């Protein structure tokens, strides 16, 4: 699990990490999904969701170091498969009423805002992602983004946070159903 904390820091490192995890764990997950009657695309979806969960837990230091990546990913994948299987059964019993479109409608403002932040605030969003999502220690983030030290990285972090906070507030007035 220290794997994520070492490789997960940079885009290149993460690419290596995901390729390695794919090679070690995906065959087992694919065999499991196939055995349960699933398709290649379903195995892919399940496995990618499992990778996201694994990454977030490992970045937060919430995974035991002695668990193997492969066993952990297989465990989450099985759980996700069984959960999805139950959901499908439930949806099938609702006479073809699909609730997924409604959820998309709800997130419309959110995705417009996301799109805006990706375009106009990419630099700050990347920095904030490293701090809060990848949970990089300040010293490493300072190196990665070329700051002179921890202090200037901290100042920049809060400046970005204020900038994005203001953008979200302003945009929310336009997208009135966002976070109402």
């Amino acid at each position: 699990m220290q794997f994520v904390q070492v490789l997960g820091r940079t885009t290149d490192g993460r690419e290596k990490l995901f390729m390695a995890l794919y090679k070690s764990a995906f065959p087992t997950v694919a065999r499991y999904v196939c055995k349960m009657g699933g398709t290649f695309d379903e195995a892919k979806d399940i496995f990618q969701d499992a990778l996201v969960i694994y990454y977030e837990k490992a970045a937060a230091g919430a995974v035991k170091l002695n668990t193997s990546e492969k066993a952990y990913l297989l465990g989450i994948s099985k759980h996700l498969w069984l959960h999805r299987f139950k959901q499908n059964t439930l949806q099938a019993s609702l006479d073809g009423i699909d609730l997924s479109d409604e959820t998309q409608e709800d997130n419309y403002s959110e995705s417009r805002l996301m799109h805006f932040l990706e375009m106009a605030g990419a630099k700050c969003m990347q920095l904030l992602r490293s701090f809060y999502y990848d949970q990089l220690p300040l010293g490493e983030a300072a190196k990665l983004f070329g700051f002179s030290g921890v202090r200037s990285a901290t100042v920049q972090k809060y400046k970005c946070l204020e900038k994005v906070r203001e953008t979200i507030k302003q945009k929310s007035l336009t997208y009135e159903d966002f976070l109402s």
Partner: protein
Amino acid sequence: MRTSLAETEQIEAHLLQQTSPGDALVFEATLLLDDELADKLHWQKATYSMIKLYGRKQLRQEIEAAHQTLFNTDKHKSFSEKIRQIFRKR
């Protein structure tokens, strides 16, 4: 650090529950009296949610890129064949 940045830092400590119980009480009392601070707190909370969504979206794109490399390049052909074989057997 600029006053506003110090305030943003304080809001963060409160939202991420990194303050001592005493400081938390003082902060909550200030919140009741200061509408502007309460407003900032509200939007800062929304900001952390957006950062998480953004991070997750980017991560998914990185995972998909790794998937495409593994399944669409000659270098990894033996691996992709091994997987396709599993689904062909049925």
